[in-house]
């Protein structure tokens, strides 16, 4: 972007905000960026599904990927290994109960978001979106949150009902 275009956009913004004086005093050393150029980093998935990419996957597809890329840490079938189990979970009957996807997590989008941003441990952000959908579908199906033939995509995934969705109390509402 040329210097001239930058100065024009700043002037236009100052006009629309009516804060020309404030801008004059501000260091203004950040560089404007086109939202499309932020996309590689813009990976947050919101609980309503905002941010979910195109694509999709099934539990059967996910099972194969899980065996290849996940089971060495999370155990065969996701039952737990050196890393936490992603399938199963006991009752929340003690303050130290293990918090699992099935017994605790409030939103299905968190599962997709965390797999895509952080997994596999040694190669984060190496999975395709279809692979992330498939792994999410596999984990949900293993936890009986969806059927074995249900496909996960940007439409179906946010609608998965997590058993503990209403199990939370906002600690300090006045701080939000």
């Amino acid at each position: 972007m040329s210097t001239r275009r930058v100065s024009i956009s700043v002037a236009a913004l100052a006009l629309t905000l009516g804060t020309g004086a404030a801008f004059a005093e501000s260091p203004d050393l950040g560089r404007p960026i086109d939202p499309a150029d932020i996309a590689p980093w813009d990976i947050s998935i919101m609980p309503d599904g905002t941010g979910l990419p195109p694509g999709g996957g099934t539990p059967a597809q996910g099972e194969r990927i899980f065996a290849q890329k996940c089971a060495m840490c999370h155990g065969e079938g996701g039952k737990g290994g050196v890393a936490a189990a992603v399938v199963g979970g006991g009752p929340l009957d003690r303050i130290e109960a293990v918090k699992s996807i099935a017994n605790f997590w409030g939103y299905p989008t968190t599962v997709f978001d965390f797999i895509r941003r952080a997994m596999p441990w040694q190669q984060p952000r190496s999975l395709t979106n279809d692979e992330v959908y498939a792994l999410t579908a596999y984990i949900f199906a293993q936890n009986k949150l969806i059927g074995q033939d249900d496909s996960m995509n940007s439409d179906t995934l946010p609608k998965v009902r997590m058993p503990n969705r209403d199990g939370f109390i906002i600690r300090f509402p006045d701080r939000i």
Partner: protein
Amino acid sequence: MEPDAKQGWDGVQAVAGNGLLHRRAFLKSGAAVAGAMMGYSFVRPATAEPLAEEPWSLGVGGLSRPYQQPSRFEEKVGRTLSNPNGEPRTSHARTPHHLVNGTITPNGLHFSIVHSGVPDIDPDRHRLVIHGLVKRPLVFTLDSLSRYPMVSRFSFVECGGNSAPMFSREPIQASVQALHGLASCAEWTGVRLSTLLDETGIDPKAKWIVAEGADSLALSRSVPVKKALDDAMIALYQNGERLMPGNGYPMRLLLPGYEGNMNVKFLRRLKLVEAPAMSYYESRTYSQLLPNGKAFRFYFLQEVKSFITQPSPGLAMRGPGFYEISGIAYSGNGRISKVMVSADGGKSWGEAALQAPVLSKAFTRFRMPWRWDGGPAILQSRAWDESGNVQPTRAQFVAERGETKNIPPVLGFPNQHYNSLTSWAIDARGEVKHVYA
């Protein structure tokens, strides 16, 4: 030195049971303090040995180094590591509170938690982008941020899981470092987040900011815009030097008084949004189960807390006589207003001296003179903050938050946000143990 008898007697007035002395013993003249110490000595110390020259006084010393390190005699002063070999799990490094003093944690001893190792970030290539519900998205470099007007403030950072072993139904025998070592305090210098948000502009619909790090997990937390505009900072310096790698180099989000995990390290992205992202760390890890099976969400605040660092387990008592009871107090709600200390397990309390300056959302050092008679004692501290909050007793705390059914491992995290009292029992041999009282 011969103490002034009258002044010395003033200085050593007992204020509570089992030998607690008036805090002003320390504020009086040196003679009064000497009086406090001598007036209560049971046995006159044996005569000192004759003085002699030592080798280091009779020869030229060593070289100065560009970045100096502590004396080789201080090698035991270090952080304890939960994952020294970097296995694929979280690594904790805990501050040795019992081996330091004052209120500022040296950078090398500041606690650190990393979930996938410490990233090796080239500061020239690091970027911070602010986008989402803003008038115009902006990208900042470390170099550009370094040209902004800066502010400095002292602030503690505490992991939400600090003191987690205290949820155990039986007291776990461990040092103050193991129990409370996931809290530290530094002077942080950087750019107010509100300054940068003034430049991006904020869409009125924005109520939350998703903060994300440049680590391999792209650790992500949702922070209310309310906090961002209050006292949040993009911290670039820690105690005068660039951030330590384990503390977020080259830049971190600093949210004074809020749960450590929200103070996102290696900060690379701030996205303004309408609703929280319900990220892994906020919707799972840092939600706290309650005895009824429900869980707290968005606890945020590190509430008023104190603990005694000296004496504490592992520090040997050297016979009856004078000791200073000392510790740290802090609150995410503001300044510490009062710390009370007990030497008899809470039957009687005396007010401790607070070391100036007492700063909001920072460690405050408290001190209490004590004459140990050599008998059993239980030391406790209890802090109040300027908003009127007080540390709950253990009974009050357990009634609300519960305790574990099984005894957890000392490095485990059975629950989070423990801010009740810590009790150290001293037996006749001078051994200090962790007890519930």
